[in-house]
């Protein structure tokens, strides 16, 4: 990976973070707290919607956000050739499996 590719990789990473963290804030602080009163006028499956967001929806969204992030980063790593797929079973990249051997 040359310098330009690195910058591109990092920019894409930051853009992904910005989008996902905006959704994170909109769902929890937005739908679950600030907009709870207007949303509570809508009812789905017995739940006032704002109440549902604060007790169920935001948590489900958090799982989805991290799932999307993990999936997207895998693709990005692959695109830029920094994926660690080969290291899932072996020990070729990143942290040595026994840093003790490295005299930590």
């Amino acid at each position, binding site marked *: 990976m040359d310098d330009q590719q690195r910058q591109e990789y990092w920019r894409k990473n930051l853009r992904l973070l910005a989008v996902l963290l905006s959704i994170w804030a909109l769902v929890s602080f937005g739908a*679950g707290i600030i907009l709870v009163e207007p949303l509570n006028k809508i009812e789905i499956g017995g739940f006032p919607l704002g109440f549902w967001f604060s007790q169920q929806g935001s948590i489900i969204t*958090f799982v989805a956000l991290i799932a999307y992030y993990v999936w997207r980063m895998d693709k990005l790593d692959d695109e830029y050739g920094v994926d*660690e797929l080969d290291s899932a079973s072996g020990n070729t990249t990143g942290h040595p499996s026994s840093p003790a051997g490295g005299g930590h």
Partner: protein
Amino acid sequence: MSDIQLWTLIFAIITFSVYIYIAYASRVSDTAGFYIAGGGIPAPANGAAIAADWMSAASFISLAGIVGLSYNGYAGGVFLMGWTGGYVLLALLLAPYLRKFGKYTLPDFVGDRYSETARLVAVLAAIVVSFVYVAGQMAGVGLVFTRFLNVNTTTGVIIGMTIVFFYAVLGGMKGITWTQVAQYSVLIIAYLIPAVAVSAKVTGIPLPQIGFGRILEELNGLQADFGLAEYSGAFTQISMPNMILITAALMFGTAGLPHVIVRFYTAKSVRAARYSALWAIFFIAILYTTAPSVAAFTKLQIIKDLTATSLADVPGWFNTWSDVGLITTAGGGPVSDLGTSTFSYSDVAINNDIIVLASPEIGGLPAPIVGLVAAGALAAALSTASGLLLVISSSVANDVYYKRINPAATEAKQLLVGRCAMAAAIVVAGYLGINPPGFVAQVVALAFGLAAASFFPILVLGIFWKKATAAGAAAGMITGLTVTMAYMIWTIDIYGNSAGIWNIPETGFGTIGMLINFAVTIAVSQFTKKPSPQMQELVEEIRYPGRTKLVAAHQDGEV
């Protein structure tokens, strides 16, 4: 011995034997195994371990009660969102980069990225936060033993300490991690079975997350009959700004807790660290979406059981828990004060901890399930305690002894110091569990605010901003911590008991402390000595997964 006691004993013996067997099978002989399980735990297992580590006695025993009883539904959302939302921050902003950086502990990152002064501040903060937290867990173990097996608290805590001692001292992080995987399985099964059974019984829908919607209207109606605010109504207990502040303090605090962060070092790779975070939030979400439904179902049943009743007619669970003093009159007196009069839900005070422990009984489920719930509560308390003890032991042995006192120590010597520190920490934690200082419960909630105000900003800036300086981080950490602590002491009931500024509760002030920390770190970094070019390059390197020379050299201690 009653049926419930017998089943509790059976489940406790089975689960404890499993934990000890796992500990024996995964004993370790080097520091990497002891501190970070050799960095080789697969992501799903690591995720389950993080979840068990995270979900303490408080999540398992108290969360549903806090949401349903003391926060009357909606306001309990601060805990539900706060204790899960932090994982998004962890997964996106910290975990992959800290994993790439390597090393063993949170103070390791702070010390290497910034300075030795910053390392010491971080060690101190990590130890204080962990001890406060672990005392609560030991007390939780004692609680379950007293209530379900009728042994006294001291015996209960000593049994718990012995079990933890065995697998934590022997197996270090490796033993702890694999035991936590087993503990997660026990606690989640114990939590789900009664929740599913009650939801199916009351609504015919076996998924409590859906069934929960069917009873809200009835619950709101019953609460109105007693003159209570609507269960699903917004801002009846906490104002909007305070909801935001408390939720944020819990979220950012979660992302700054040393015992959670260290778990990402145990992952195999950067990719595995990301997947660990995903598995962790998934496993946590299973319990955290079930808890509010347990809260609602149990509260509904409690209100129904306690409508125009008298002591002669109350159901069995009422007697079980009033006998141990967890149900009292609204004024706090023994329930016998009610005499032969007719009373209802609002005439008695019910302790939060009962909701989960008594939910099988309240829902009319058989004794084995009650025993299983007790074993689940023990699993939750023990798993969190062991994770915290590891943070204490590694902070002392790695960050203080090896890094500061005796850098020439051999592998065997370090391991011995680590084990001794662990043993000492267990004894102190056990003592605190038997003689809990009155302020523990309050301080545990405050630990999040302190973590948010001290660690979160300097970690994020340390990763995302190459020019964050050592002086900036130390100043930011100290200011954030001091201001937050001062505000807490000034406002919590047992000390200052002041209303504070704009009625900001002490639990929400961590958010303000965090913003102050950010501001101070950024400001001081502008005019203090920039990090060395090599450090800036290292910070650049950790942004990309895969093996890079500089990072590898740093992990080997050559940089």
